[in-house]
């Protein structure tokens, strides 16, 4: 099974729109949303039925047993994250400030402090036809990269023998993005012709190259700045990155997407241009479109 990952560097360039359309174009049986901080592929890629939901435990956090705590405050003094505070004579750990280092469990003379598994998010798996794997990270949790790995393994384990899996990634170049890159066959970067679009494109290209991932680029809303589009194309040529096409800005496309329809379902020039990008992407993956 070939894995195609769709990234952008900058947010809001049309990554999920592209992913949802590629899912329709290819009638993909296997796909995943690895943007665990802000998953939204499900909004434009409807899947029938209910997903299996499972808890995701990222790391451990301190818990101080109020029955055993005598209020000495040794733990609060030892906590370098200032995560332990006193209320009504007993100490409690703040789940958002605690990093789970466990120093409180080592210093507490009364054995009141322990580490407990902390629910960091939920995993959702539609295990039918198609297989769709996604997740939601809880507020303030820092295990997004690990959760992305869990989303991808859930997808791979449930996947039927299919030729292609399509993965929607997250913006940026951080931990969840790096985690989404591992093991994919091609990263398609959807960018836009703006100063920040080009700037962030360079950052994601560099990140992907550190992890030796094959990349290709397309420009969405290219006619908003033909000059910047030309600059992006020149950059791709210089870096020897396959440039797979330009998709025009289309107000009717935006309207349809807001109604929950992928661009693939609307008869417009943007759809045709995106189909061309899809065809070239499949050819890079050696898959018959």
């Amino acid at each position, binding site marked *: 099974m070939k894995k195609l990952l769709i990234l952008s560097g900058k947010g809001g360039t049309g990554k999920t729109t592209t992913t949802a359309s590629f899912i329709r174009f290819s009638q993909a049986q296997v796909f995943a949303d690895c943007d665990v901080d802000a998953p939204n592929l499900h909004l434009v890629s409807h899947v029938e039925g209910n997903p299996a939901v499972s808890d995701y435990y990222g790391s*451990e956090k301190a818990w101080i047993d109020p029955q055993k705590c005598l209020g000495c405050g040794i733990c609060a003094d030892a906590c370098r994250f200032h995560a332990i505070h006193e209320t009504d004579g007993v100490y409690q750990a703040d789940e958002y400030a605690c990093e789970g280092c466990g120093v409180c469990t080592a210093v507490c003379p009364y054995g009141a402090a322990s580490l407990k598994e902390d629910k960091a998010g939920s995993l959702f798996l539609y295990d039918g036809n198609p297989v769709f794997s996604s997740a939601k990270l809880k507020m303030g949790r820092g295990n997004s990269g*690990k959760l992305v790995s869990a989303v991808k393994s859930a997808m791979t384990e449930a996947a039927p023998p299919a030729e292609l899996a399509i993965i929607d990634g997250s913006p940026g170049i951080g*931990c969840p993005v*790096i985690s989404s890159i*591992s*093991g994919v066959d091609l990263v398609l970067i959807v960018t836009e012709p703006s100063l920040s679009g080009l700037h962030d494109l360079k950052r994601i290209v560099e990140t992907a190259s*550190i992890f*030796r991932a094959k990349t290709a680029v397309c420009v969405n809303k290219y006619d908003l700045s033909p000059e910047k589009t030309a600059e992006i194309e020149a950059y791709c040529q210089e870096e020897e990155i396959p440039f797979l096409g330009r998709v025009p800005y289309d107000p009717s496309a935006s309207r349809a997407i807001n109604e929950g329809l992928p661009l693939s379902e609307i008869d417009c020039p943007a759809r045709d241009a995106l189909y061309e990008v899809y065809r070239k992407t499949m050819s890079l993956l050696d898959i018959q479109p």
Partner: protein
Amino acid sequence: MIAVPLDENKKDVCVSFGRAPYVLFYDTETKKQEICENPAAQAQGGAGLKAAQFLVDHKVNVLITIRCGQNAAEVLQAAEMSIYEAQGTDAETNLAAYAEGKLEPLSHFHAGFHGKA
């Protein structure tokens, strides 16, 4: 004993040392190979350190890897392990290249991907 971090396909060298799903152990005396799951792959943090400890426990003295972070390198160096830079994609070719003395020692250790050394 030689160790190589492996990808999911159990054939190619993994770009990540700490979070590689598997590790290939090659015993240069018995010429036997063994592929083990990397217990550090699912670590909550400090995967590089844990993977390094795993290698030390397996009495590895040569590591062939694409990259290695600073924290892991400190453990490996304390255990006097030699670290060589992998070339190409698959582990077999790298074992052969090492045997022929064609691999270069890994000279750069990155500071990690979490903004702290």
